[in-house]
């Protein structure tokens, strides 16, 4: 079980900022995205623009294999606009 955090446009599309999700311990970032879109289909529109942050490190959506621990924080990161 991981904590999924939603920010900015992704929080608007998902309708929430935070939830726990059960996912396999080993999963590619692309598969993790697909699991999340199953729960929140409206997120599909930003698919090409987002990256993840897993344990506060950026991960691109792709074949990168993630090894997740219970309680890990996974954040959906839309294109940033700080400063």
């Amino acid at each position: 079980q991981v904590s999924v955090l939603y920010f900015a446009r992704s929080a608007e599309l998902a309708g929430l900022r935070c939830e726990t999700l059960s996912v396999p311990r080993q999963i590619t970032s692309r598969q993790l995205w697909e699991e999340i879109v199953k729960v929140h289909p409206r997120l599909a529109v930003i698919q090409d623009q987002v990256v993840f942050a897993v344990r506060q490190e950026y991960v691109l959506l792709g074949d990168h294999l993630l090894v997740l621990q219970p309680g890990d924080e996974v954040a959906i990161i839309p294109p940033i606009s700080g400063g």
Partner: protein
Amino acid sequence: MDESKDVPKDFIKLKSEKLSVDEVSELVISPCCGAVSLFIGTTRNNFEGKKVICLEYEAYTSMAEIEIKKICRDIRQKWLSVKHIAVHHRLGVVPVTEASVIIAVSSPHRAESLEAVTYCISTLKASVPIWKKEIYEDEYSWKENKECFWTNSEK
């Protein structure tokens, strides 16, 4: 000021209260430094012909602080003489003309702090998980920095 404790420091703060240029520049002042360089990012009142009422910022706070800390570390590797670095970023609503970000860097001579400030704001815009919403009269828009390191330029 206790001169024996004048070790290089990073001052990073994300807060919803109004930012203070005086406060941020005072943080980096150091007896051994002859230069303090500053950048202030303020809310502009227009975008593509639309009137901007205000900006609204949100952040992945824990990661934003980590990413800003990395930028500070990079600055010290590139400009060895940099002394103190302060980055204050406002969250929540920022009305027009008010500051959303203030960056201050001190160094013995001016070249390093001027260059470090430029590097800091550019890298912040490329890598720190902070988002702004531009609020117009009848709609709003989530902004996307062109520096954002994962978005395609041909979008």
